[in-house]
Every structure is written in C-alpha cells, then in structure tokens.
C-alpha cells in the first residue's frame, strides 16, 4: 500500500472524519470533520505511520 493510501486509511478510521482525500502532489490531506473533531488524535493517527503532520488550515 502506498503512502497516500496509508494516510487515507488512518484518517478514515477516525470517527469524526466524514470525508477524506490525500493530495500526494501537494503533500496535503483534506478532511471534513464533524463536531467531535480531535486535532491532536488526528495528527497522531498520521504521525503514527511515520509521517510528519501539522494542521495547515481549518474552515
């Protein structure tokens, strides 16, 4: 499984993620989250895979 697919799978497993898409070219993950959004746990889901992650934009 490639890097982008692994990130997508990790994000998809989070209960507050409603939609997810990884833009490999831009090195970004675009997600739509519900009211239970947990920023720390979201970043952790990505960094647990060995990638770096920061919140670039909300809203």
């Amino acid at each position, binding site marked *: 499984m490639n890097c982008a697919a692994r990130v997508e799978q990790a994000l998809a497993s989070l209960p507050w993620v409603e939609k997810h898409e*990884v833009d490999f070219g831009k090195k970004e993950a675009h997600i739509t989250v519900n*009211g239970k959004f947990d920023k*720390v746990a979201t970043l952790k889901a990505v960094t647990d895979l060995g990638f770096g992650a*920061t*919140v670039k934009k*909300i809203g």
Partner: protein
Amino acid sequence: MESGSLSSRDFASYASKEVVPYLHVTSRIQGNTTDGIFREYGGTGFPTLLFLDADGNKLAKVAGADRNVEGFRKTEGQIARLLKLRDAAASGKEGTDVDLLLLELEMGLTSFTSAQEARAGLDAPKKKRSSFEEKVAKIDNLLLNLEINEIRRSAGRDPEKRKGVEITLYEFAKDGRIPASYSSSFWFPVMEGAKRMGDATIFAVGMKLFREQYDEHFTGPENRVQNRYKKMEEDLAKIKEKGASTSPAEVVKSQSVVLAVTGMT
C-alpha cells in the same frame, strides 16, 4: 570526552593538520571577559562543540553522536554544502533559499526570529513546486521546535514564567501545533498546563504518547518511568473528579480541515 574520542591518534592527526582547535572553559571568574562566549554562540550544555570560520562566525554545531573524527568530517561535509548554498542564494539562484533555510535550521544555525523572517520571504518556484512544499513543511516542523525551545528558554528558572509557558504550550497542543516526534520537554509542560486548565483530554494524549515512547520500561521491575506513569494516572483521575472537560470537541459543526503531511514518498 577528552579521555575518549579526543585522545585518539586519529583525532591528534586530524586536529594538528586540518583544523585549529580552540578550547574555551566558562569560568565564572569575576572580570573574565570571555565568559560570555558560551551563551553568545548558543551553547545549551557541556560540552558544546562548534566549527567556526577564521572570523569566528559559527559554521556548525557538532551533534552529540558526532564527537569523533568521522563525525567531524561529516560536519565538514555539511559546512561545505552550507557555504555552497549561501553563495548560490546570494547570487539569486532560484530555489536555493529554501534549501539554505532548511539546512541552517537542521544545523541549528539560526534563531527563531531570523528563521521566521526567512520563511516568510520564501517564494514558491515555478518548477518543482511539490518538492518546494515538502521542504517548507519540514521547515515549519523545525520552526515549531525552535519556537518551543525559545518559549521554554524565555522562562528561565522563574516559577511564575514557567507556569505561563505551560499554558502557552498547552494552547499549542490544543491547536494541533505538535512536534513531529515525541518530546518530553514539550509534553511535560503541556500536561502541567492541561492539569491546571482541567483538560483531561490533552492530559491523556500526553500520557498515551509517554507510554508509547517508553514502552520497553513497562515490562520488568518497577522503575522511575512506571512510577511517573502511575502519578500521571492519579493526576488524570483528579482532573476528571473535578468535573473538568473531557470532551475533545472544539468544533461544533462539520467543517473542512487541511493537514500538511511530510515524508510521503
């Protein structure tokens, strides 16, 4: 160190032919005019090993693991790349400013303020845009670490200022501004801040990361790591008892979030 790697024949040969060794000892003797050197060059612990140019400008700090001839040569390689990049950037060659800033940050050669200014001045090149963005994401991670260090250092030993730092770093964690790799010097103050703010969620995240970082210490006889974790469990229970917020929810409705992800190849 002088009884180890610096006593080797290799080092004697290297130091007598390829560099001019200079040893400074911070004495704290009143009237000693050179005692400020350690601070001026950004020393953070003893020993601090630096490469300087003939004018005394800092070229590189030698990492702890590189305090041997092999490591010194590796550092020299980085310096050669640094000087080449500085020349290229000075001549206005496109795309070199991002490489230079990244290398200077990796080598610990820039302060947060100057790095932040340089970061703001970076222009995306017309070509190789994704490579540029990946480098910028790495720069942002390194900048975050630098910012955290500067915030921590600014408090010194003042207990009141340290409390302020704990709250500031707790806010960082809440905002998702978290170092890419686990750092107790970030998470311990964050957890103290979370304790004071009654935020069991952030506190629990810090606990979880601590547990994962020191996982190998959780088997076998009782030790300091296990004791520290037990104390954390007690603290978490107290936060929850106080009826503090345990809800991670900050966002009330659906919205879009963009994450910058580095390291995907």
